[in-house]
């Protein structure tokens, strides 16, 4: 199972805990994980990826295995420990005021 950690506001929106577990078939990529996440939690559609562009919203970041992978291609394989379920993919809201 792929582990994904969500920012607090999205856990409320999705009515779930801080970390969710997802089945992802095929190569484990950002796109595949986010597709599976949105399929399991439809309320999250449009909140992580922009509807128009399909790209990560600008004030969100993706971290994995202590690396910032936000700008990796969406179809690039995620690090092995994420694909193996030993490390989570972190979706993090940028620290910005307001």
């Amino acid at each position, binding site marked *: 199972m792929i582990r994904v950690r969500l920012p607090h506001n999205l856990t409320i929106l999705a009515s779930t805990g801080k970390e969710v577990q997802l089945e992802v078939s095929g190569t484990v990529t950002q796109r595949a994980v986010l597709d599976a996440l949105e399929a399991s939690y439809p309320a999250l559609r*449009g*909140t*992580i990826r*922009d509807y*128009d562009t399909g790209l990560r*919203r600008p*004030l969100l970041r993706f971290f994995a295995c202590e690396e910032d992978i936000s700008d990796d291609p969406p179809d690039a394989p995620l690090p092995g420990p994420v694909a193996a379920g030993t490390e989570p993919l972190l979706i993090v*809201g*940028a620290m910005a005021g307001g």
Partner: protein
Amino acid sequence: MSSVRVLVGTKKGAFIMTSDGKREQWEVTGPHFAGWEVYHLKASPADPDRLYASQTSGWFGQVLQRSEDAGATWNAVGNQFEYEGEVGTHTWYDGSPHPYKFARVWHLEPSLSDPDTVFAGVEDAALFKTTDGGQSWRELPALRTHDSSSGWQPGAGGLCLHTILLNPEDAEQITIAISAAGVFKTEDGGKSWRPANKGLRSPQLPDEDVEVGHCVHHLASHPSRPGTLFMQKHWHVMRSDDAAESWQKISGNLPTDFGFVIDVHAHEPETLYVVPITSDSHHFVPDGKLRVYRSRTGGNEWEALTNGLPQKDCYVNVLRDAMAVDGLDSCGIYFGTSGGQVYASADAGDTWKPIVRDLPAVLSVEVQTLK
């Protein structure tokens, strides 16, 4: 016994306040959607327990929420607002072309007769409609593709469609306002639109009586007189007695005619309320005094209403959607401030009391009168 429900959107969540018809004791619930900007909540006139809320965030974008039980529980509904057809450009602050891009829903206007039908005014300016309770939204594209739209420029808050007036006598007639393009009206349910700004003058524009380009802040009308409209423009308070075909200035003796809100008494169609704001560079009330101004003559002659409102060291603003009236026999007036106060008057403005004093900055206030 009648009761009222006040729906308040703030910078950090929504709050719902209920009281019996005396409007003395209030129960407050919230924050709903804590931490999110809630630009607007509004109930369906056809089903008072059906509420819609626009929940938005710079991080997470737009979420639309619906409640079937007067806000006790909520469910996220559709949040995809896709412009139809070719997405063109509007004019940016510096005069350059700028692509239209959806940012957020400013205003939700439920149908007067069908709980599943709602109009949404959005930034960048466009009008959307749902007929399935918010699950899916479709643009009424004739407005955004109007011949003038490439020249529409944003106000300081963005290029927002913020006011939607539905004509209770004719469902095909809708009047909307955009900052800073002005008023547009349709008489065919949104298939075609035309500007309705004759009589407006904006000295900050190169052509001060241009057909399109005015920064209209808010519109109001009384349900019994849909042909009479009132406007708080950036500067100037205006009225129209011919369904927005022409406008006349009614600022009269107001201490300043800059402001955002305007509303009409529930039972007196010629009784109006505004909150004058010092200026467009000072978005706070004049002289440290929070004063609602009431006209009982349809404009021009205004009286300050101060009883119960702070008259010293007060520097709040009242935003465009942050005033509403109830329909009880003694008309209640409500407004919220940038300082987080929500004030209520149960006697048409003669006296005021705060329902709450310390919310996040208030973005919108709506009121339901419940039998």
